């Protein structure tokens, strides 16, 4: 079978699956979501999956990632095991985590928590039932400007996901943790949709961890919409820790209002094919965005981080730092675009990408881009690819540290620039530990976790 036919089959399969199962898919969600679903499905059908000819996907073969006999669950399926028994998260402050199992909110829990301060946290489907107007006001509102077929595909199939609503003036001290768990006994394609709304003067941190309980291949195509209201403060951390047969695609859309501050940190510890799309729109003056990413790849893993920071209003600031360590025959891709509109005077935008290559089979592709239409701006980007600093190495060796250990220390220091941008201290410590293990080539499993992720 030729490649072309195979590829068009992937698109046809997705389109057919949608048509065949649309009664079940539509049943789970209210009309306003289904209306959008139909709209995005039509767009996806016309556009298809991105090919390598698509400039934004030049270095990542998304179509091949969709090969495979992925099953989909169009309604929640019963589980044979008690998840809470086998899965624990040992980050001290995050003991009350929420769980999405195979893309569905874990059914033994209280699906939607209503906190005394008015905050709503829980299942998106449940929220559409209890607070239809609130969800309708925000659902799908922040992804419209991007013509990206992965998010269109997600909008066509998405059903459940995380819903967080923080009302005006409310500060949620404890981070909200969502665990995206995949426990199927077969190959699964899951497409959750998360919606995080922080109203004026509010503050919240959300931690999303992607985990798998067994070594079955899976494809995760997740979309997260974030609205940061005036003066709000948000932190979003995502930890991606799966296995070599996983395909993890994330699309994150962040809309920032006046004087809002958003800190986002993506740590890719382990994944087969990973593509993270981050779209940030600074829509009102004085909004401030910080985005960070770290990826550790070995074997044949392929990790692609793509950012697009849109400065649409004056006096905004953005700062990006993306770092990758690549071993064996892995590939690391970074593509970052900063767009400054004509109106966005006094913009400050910085972007930096650094890559460490450990072997001659590893590859890096870097594409930092500036597109600037306003004159009173300070914008810069930098990209550097190289190996560990010889002088630093010599210094350590002089002090009797073995080559392996010195190499390890320097890699950890390299990674730490990104890790220390996580403001949640216990999570930071946990991730430092996981990165350390990962760099040593051990399975980076949390200490108390009984799960065999690898």
């Amino acid at each position, binding site marked *: 079978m030729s490649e072309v036919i195979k590829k068009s089959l992937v698109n046809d399969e997705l389109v057919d699956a949608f048509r065949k199962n649309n009664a079940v898919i539509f049943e789970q969600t209210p009309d306003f979501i289904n209306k959008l679903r139909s709209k995005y499905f039509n767009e996806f059908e016309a556009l298809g999956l991105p090919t390598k000819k698509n*400039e934004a996907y030049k270095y990542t073969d998304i179509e091949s990632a969709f090969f495979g006999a992925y099953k989909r669950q169009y309604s929640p399926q019963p589980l044979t095991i008690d998840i809470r028994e086998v899965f624990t998260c040992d980050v001290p402050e995050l003991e009350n985590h929420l769980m999405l199992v195979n893309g569905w909110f874990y059914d033994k829990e209280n699906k939607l928590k209503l906190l005394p301060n008015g905050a709503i946290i829980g299942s998106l489907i449940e929220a559409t039932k209890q607070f239809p107007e609130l969800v309708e006001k925000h659902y799908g509102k922040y992804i419209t400007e991007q013509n990206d077929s992965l998010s269109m595909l997600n909008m066509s199939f998405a059903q459940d996901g995380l819903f967080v609503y923080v009302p005006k003036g409310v500060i949620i001290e404890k981070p909200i943790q969502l665990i995206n768990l995949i426990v199927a006994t077969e190959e699964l394609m899951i497409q959750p949709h998360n919606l995080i709304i922080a109203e004026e003067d509010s503050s919240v941190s959300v931690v999303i961890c992607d985990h798998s309980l067994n070594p079955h291949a899976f494809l995760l195509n997740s979309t997260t919409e974030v609205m940061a209201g005036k003066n709000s403060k948000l932190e979003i951390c995502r930890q991606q820790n799966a296995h070599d047969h996983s395909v993890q695609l994330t699309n994150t859309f962040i809309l920032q209002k006046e004087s809002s501050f958003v800190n986002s940190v993506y740590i890719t510890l382990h994944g087969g094919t990973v593509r993270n799309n981050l779209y940030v729109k600074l829509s009102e003056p004085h909004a401030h965005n910080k985005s960070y990413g770290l990826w550790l790849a070995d074997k044949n893993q392929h990790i692609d981080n793509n950012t697009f920071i849109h400065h649409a209003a004056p006096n905004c600031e953005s700062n990006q730092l993306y770092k990758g360590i690549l071993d064996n025959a892995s590939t690391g891709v970074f593509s970052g675009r900063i767009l400054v509109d*004509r109106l966005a*005077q006094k913009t400050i935008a910085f972007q930096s990408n650094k*890559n460490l*290559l*450990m*072997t*001659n*089979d*590893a*590859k*890096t*592709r*870097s*594409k*930092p*881009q*500036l*597109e*600037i*239409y*306003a*004159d*009173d*701006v*300070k*914008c*810069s*980007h*930098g*990209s*550097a*690819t*190289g*190996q560990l600093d010889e002088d630093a190495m010599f210094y350590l060796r002089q002090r009797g540290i073995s080559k392996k250990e010195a190499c390890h220390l320097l890699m950890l220091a390299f990674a730490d620039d990104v890790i220390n941008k996580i403001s949640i201290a216990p999570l930071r410590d946990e991730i430092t530990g996981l990165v350390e293990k990962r760099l040593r080539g051990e399975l980076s499993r949390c200490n108390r976790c009984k799960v065999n992720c690898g």
Partner: protein
Amino acid sequence: MENEQDKIISEVTDNEYKYGFFTEIESDTIAKGLSEEVVKIISSRKNEPEFMLEWRLKAFEYWKKMKMPNWAHLTIPEIDYQDIIYYSAPKQNAELASIDEIDPELKATFDRLGIPLDEQKKLSGVAVDAVMDSASIKTTFKENLADLGIIFCSMSEAVREHPDLIKKYLGSVVPYTDNFFATLNCAVFSDGSFVYIPKGVRCPMELSTYFRINAENTGQFERTLIIADEGSYVSYLEGCTAPKRDKNQLHAAVVELVALKNAEIKYSTVQNWYPGDKNGKGGIYNFVTKRGICKEDNAKISWTQVETGSAVTWKYPSCILKGDNTSAEFYSVAVTNNYQQADTGTKMMHIGKNTKSRIVSKGISAGQSQNSYRGLVKVLKNAENARNFSQCDSLLLGNNCGAHTFPYIEVDNKEAIVEHEATTSRIGEDQIFYCNQRGISTEDAIGLIVNGYAREVLNQLPMEFAVEAQKLLQISLEGSVG
């Protein structure tokens, strides 16, 4: 202060293109349109050998299947390739024995452009090949150079007289299948310069080509090939202008450089095609493919360009670092004003071991213009110890223009060190204030700062050209450069 700066910037926008005159001259022009017949006519007018015609026809066949690229950050209206005259040459007697035989009108034209066709009036020893529309008019100092074994002549002459070198090297760096404009050039190229520097010879003078588009509705397709044999050195300059016209004209050139073992080629361009008027009407579409290859060990290629003209520029002088220990440089100043658009940059392909490349690009945008840097640095798997440094700065004058940077970095070798830096800013109020405090007017201050900003690149130009380039910068940003 703000207003004053705006005023200066608007003065900049109002400056005139001084090379915009047209020479009334009798010319040999073929009918509009492009077909196999036209390719044959061009080849026969040039008295070309059979192998050239075959090559042209192959290219033309291939071109018919190609589509114009649209990936650049440019807005180009549809170009009707049948509405262009592909051959137009000033009529003159076939063989010229001396300078006196050149049509006085032609000579006057080049005198007006400040190009010395007259060897008596030589300007610090620059040998010139003057090309108007589709034909080379005159190559100076040919005999002196021939004494050293250097071949410096028009492309049509080289095709006839040095077919072996042409067969061996033409299309070896930019093959006829390369890209839309290069393929078109292969099919219809009319003239250009050919340079061959023999083993161990250091070319004693700057070689230069001056391109002039004169006739209306014509496209100019010139082709330049420079070969530097083992251990030789050559510095080559290129300049260009065109008359003012309301209609856009097409210019699609190809330049190929071949540097053999220990050879060095320095290629400098001052591109000043007519940029269109201040409302964006007219101007040259400049779609150029330039590529050099450091074919053998220790070769070096350096590109320097000052881009001030053309309505649309699509140009990426590149280097293939094939030999070990080879090095390449790319220095560029691109100035866009009014409605000009430029998408320019370079490609550095590191293939050999211990290769080095350096990219310095300075963009200056004013008026309503769009100025982009687009570049690729690629280090192949076996290119050990490759080193690249890129710096791409953009300066914005006024708030209606755009400055963009699109670098691509692909590294497949762990020993490579590849660095890229880019900044975008405008002239700081504090910098101007500092100058004002010291009694320097705002206008002079902007001039100083722009000049200082571009200096790193201008310094790379040969003496004679550096003066011209600095003047050009002054004209392009008149009122702001002191």
